[in-house]
């Protein structure tokens, strides 16, 4: 009994557009492949849930949630939290790397200055 009602249609179209948007961003090189995995999974899960409504109902029952749509909120929230955590990890790595780069720049500028002043003498 796969009657397609309006809500389902809207959610299928919505999650499809999200997936297309993600893939398009990857294609244009605006979203690096290595960071796109979670986004693709998010889009795919949303699409899956809107096509097979029974999935959401079963999931809600399994978790003991009476009102199936709130299971959807739970799934969404968990994904968003994971994404944000993922970003925090990336930001930490980037800031570590930019710190290293800045230090290297300072050291290289001094080395260059030394060479330019023609006094590159090393202490023993």
């Amino acid at each position: 009994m796969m009657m397609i009602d309006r809500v389902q249609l809207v959610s299928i179209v919505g999650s499809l557009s999200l997936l297309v948007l993600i893939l398009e961003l990857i294609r244009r090189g605006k979203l690096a492949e290595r960071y796109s995995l979670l986004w693709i999974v998010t889009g795919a899960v949303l699409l899956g849930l809107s096509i097979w409504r029974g999935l959401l109902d079963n999931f809600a029952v399994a978790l003991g949630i009476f009102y199936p749509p709130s299971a959807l909120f739970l799934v969404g929230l968990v994904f968003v939290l994971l994404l944000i955590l993922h970003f925090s990890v990336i930001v930490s790595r980037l800031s570590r790397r930019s710190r290293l780069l800045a230090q290297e720049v300072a050291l290289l500028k001094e080395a260059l200055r030394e060479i330019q002043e023609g006094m590159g003498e090393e202490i023993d």
Partner: protein
Amino acid sequence: MSQKQSDVAILIPAYNEETTLSDLIDRLRSELPNCGIIVMDDGSVDQTAEVARSAGAVVLRLPFNLGIGAAMQTGYRYAKRKGYRIAVQVDGDGQHPPEEIHRLIEPIRQGADLVIGCRFLGRGDFKSPLMRRLGMLFFSFTISTLVGRRFHDTTSGFRAAGRSVIEYYSDHYPSDYPEPEAILLLCRAGFDVREVPAKIVERGGGHSSITAIRGVYYLFKVFLAIAMGTLRPVRRPGRENE
């Protein structure tokens, strides 16, 4: 620069310290005539770099503000590459008197790896606000407990490091409020860390980077870093970080 260079590098982290720096460098020069004086300018917006350079210091100018830990590490990297045997950390605001540096260097020459100039061991009468004192006590207590040895002044930035520590700190140095954590790292890696009494005076200019609100973050960050530091595998010398 034609006379023989000594093997001692003075590392001065500076952030907008144009008012105190030139006087400090002059005093360092007369106290330790041949030592290398290195100013790590942590993205200052005033004339810090120019003042330090015209006073005769080597200036490592960071392109943007990275915080004291990363600035200090830049100095250690420089000292490592230049082959210095001893590096002495001195604050840019003049609270660490150059006359006291010999007291820090002496134990290094006799084999210590890191020597901390301690405010509370009898020399000088260092007064600081109650909250800061409590914070200092807290860190000293925490570090002492974790390391199993009594440390009196874990927040003092007046330190001398030997060659092995210069190399170690080039690869591993904590960011943000690094002093207590930097001790813990060394102790866990098996270095010989000592404290000596040192006179530390009122600030000549500038002001503490630690304000009331930052104080809370300071406590939290350092405590978390110390707790995680003890759970993390020991970072042995010689392994580059990413």
